[in-house]
């Protein structure tokens, strides 16, 4: 059997990690979308539940960071088992690269939303903009992730 580095997970641990990555991704998308919906009234100066917004912002940022960390944990396995094999023949690794960069840009947006949510109504429009940007990044990460996985997952061919 071919010996790989410790960070390249075997097939079953990688499969479980991928499922956890998908579940955490769904939760991140759900919470970041809720944050957008709940901050929307602030744009028009309407009353909004600032305590709930703070909760969504904090939970969203923590979920996003956890999802980011799990993605980095899975990355060596994908890079060695999948991306290297598909590099010349498939669109999937290139699309995967777009996903990783877009998701990285979403993390500071959600962290900024968390900081701004602690300010209450003072930073309402900015809070909505940061939440909206982060949600776009989370959604694109989820959709591109599914597309890439549909091309070829971490299992051996």
């Amino acid at each position, binding site marked *: 059997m071919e010996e790989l580095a410790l960070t390249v997970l075997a097939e079953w641990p990688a499969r479980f990690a991928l499922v956890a990555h998908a579940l955490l991704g769904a939760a991140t998308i759900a919470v970041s979308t809720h944050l957008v919906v709940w901050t929307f009234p602030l744009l028009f100066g309407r009353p909004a539940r600032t305590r709930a917004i703070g909760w969504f912002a904090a939970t969203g940022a923590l979920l996003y960071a956890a999802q980011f960390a799990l993605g980095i944990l899975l990355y*060596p396995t994908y890079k060695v088992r999948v991306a290297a094999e598909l590099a010349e023949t498939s669109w999937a690794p290139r699309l995967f690269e777009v996903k990783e*960069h*877009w998701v990285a840009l979403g993390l500071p947006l959600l962290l900024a939303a968390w900081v701004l949510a602690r300010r209450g109504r003072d930073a309402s429009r900015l809070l909505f903009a940061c939440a909206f940007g982060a949600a776009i990044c989370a959604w694109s990460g989820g959709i591109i992730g599914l597309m890439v996985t549909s091309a070829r997952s971490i299992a051996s061919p």
Partner: protein
Amino acid sequence: MNVLVSEIVSARALRARTPVETAALVSVAAFAWAYVAIDWLALPRLFFLPLEDRIVWASQTPGPAIGYPGACLTAGLVAGIAAAIASRLGPERPGRRLGLATACSILVAMAYFVWRSWP
């Protein structure tokens, strides 16, 4: 007691004057620009070599290498420094121009990575 109360009040006032919004915007824009610059100019950063289980500091590496977390770390550091400077020197309320500039930074960074991955 009165001295303590007045100190607490002044500390609260000081905290309220901190330009958090400006710092948040500047840090997001700085992260985006730094993240693009690291890739575009191939600046040195931490790379993880998955086949060797080794981390190296380089601008480019042969074979499969993961530079993504290293780029995030460096861009995060730049964003942190930018936020610290903006919170000391920036205006209390960011203008519309700063908001637009930050939004443009994110969009330019997103477009750059699409262009780079899909020539």
